[in-house]
């Protein structure tokens, strides 16, 4: 994040939402990229599109992500958002707007809610 906002690491707060553009997360096939975003307290990443492996890895480690071009275009720095993850609806409280994203199917939601793929598998296996 240093390249976009040098002060990011200092000001990010628990529950913050990152809104990105196209091909978000490009350049890293490692799980460290979404892990560090998750560890910084970010609750969700919204983007127009995600780089392939970043998309997989985010879900697999339990970082909430949403693909929503409209939210990506209309949201500005500092806007307050409220996300209904199950329904795939992003409300921009500051602007009083609502954006529709494709909600994830149940099994993907379960992975994210369980805090990652392996934990969700453990839960479903009942072990």
């Amino acid at each position, binding site marked *: 994040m240093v390249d976009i906002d040098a002060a990011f690491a200092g000001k990010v707060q628990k529950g913050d939402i990152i809104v990105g553009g196209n091909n978000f997360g490009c350049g890293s096939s490692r799980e460290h990229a979404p892990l560090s975003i998750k560890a910084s307290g970010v609750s969700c990443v919204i983007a127009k599109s995600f780089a*392939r492996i970043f998309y997989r890895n985010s879900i697999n480690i339990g970082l909430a992500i949403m693909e929503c071009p409209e939210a990506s275009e209309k949201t500005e720095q500092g806007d307050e958002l409220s996300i209904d993850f199950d329904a795939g609806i992003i409300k921009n409280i500051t602007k009083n707007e609502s954006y529709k994203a494709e909600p994830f199917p149940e099994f993907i939601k379960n992975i994210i809610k369980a805090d990652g793929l392996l934990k969700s598998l453990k839960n479903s296996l009942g072990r």
Partner: protein
Amino acid sequence: MAMTMSQKILATHAGLPEVKAGQLIKAKVDMVLGNDITTPVAINEFEKHGFDSIFDKDKISIVLDHFTPNKDIKAAEQSKQCRKFASKYQITNFFDVGEMGVEHALLPEKGLVASGEVIIGADSHTCTYGALGAFSTGVGSTDMAAGMATGEAWFKVPAALKFNLTSKPNKWVSGKDIILHIIGKIGVDGALYKSMEFVGEGVHHLSMDDRFAMANMAIEAGAKNGIFPVDEKAKAYMKYKVTRNYNIYEADADALYDEVHEMDLATIKPTVAFPHLPSNTKTVDEIVNINIDQVIIGSCTNGRLEDLAIAAEILKNRKVAQGVRAIIIPATQKIWLEASKLGYLDTFIKAGCAVSTPTCGPCLGGHMGIMAAGEKTVATTNRNFIGRMGHTSSEIYLASPAVAAASAVLGKIAAPFALE
């Protein structure tokens, strides 16, 4: 609804009558692959989460190929961890030094991957098996851990680009030149998240080794997978290697493609990707006097028997130029033996090349050919990112085995025509 070849394979493995681009599905996998770098991470995740069984000991492959024969203590520890895990769970397809080869050359050779199957591997170039008409793609280590435990993976069904290949490539033009040409045309994200489906009568003029090289580099255009139709050549390749039944899928005639590219193979020239992106291509006739320090012929892209045959044809009764180190790495033990029987290894050594045991080695800057500051290598590998094969000021030029061998003889980047 009409489906592409990749979509049909995924639908079958998900137990669904149809799937469409963008849909998220859970699918059964026929093979889960890892190497000596990615498997330890997967093992740690697997154990941390308390898993204590694997889904099928015959459907996991662990190949120690990246830093082997072990280059340092850390590499040795990673190999040791894989060895212990493979032994504990009696993993059938565990390949250690002496049997191993570069994973994406080894699995097809051993008949462990086949047409119509779904394969995931914790390695970017897992897409190689699309040459056999399989759906195969690179994933993360968590996916590998989950795959080993459950035999399943989730996928976002890819849209597709169609490449309609016509006519026959000219002498000295191989699958490597074709895929470099395509990546040069569409860019490193030109096929992002999509399938690259190669079709048309031109496919029949491509050898299996050409197809492996092309499917292998689909990821360098950002693709999720590259895939070829299964013709007589592909069936002949699998005939004695694959002992189980396999299924052949064809795209529906009215399947939807985001783009269709027409490619006349006869117009494609030997092509080289300049530093530092696989899409930064030039044809050999555009290149003037780039002196080189090293040549690498090998890797999961171009370390197969036909690649070595082409290199041997060029290096026979010739010498590697003064000041150039030429390193030849047959991709598997079987390829090594065949190259030996056919006299290729004699040819290479007499020409002044070093011949290595199979390893990924220099391709990822591991070992066996690392560059100093400012050096230049012509390599038959697949990635030429900054610093990938050594110092950050060193340069990698990606090329076919023919161009690499001719460059070794001339000491500068050249096509074999320059020797005629």
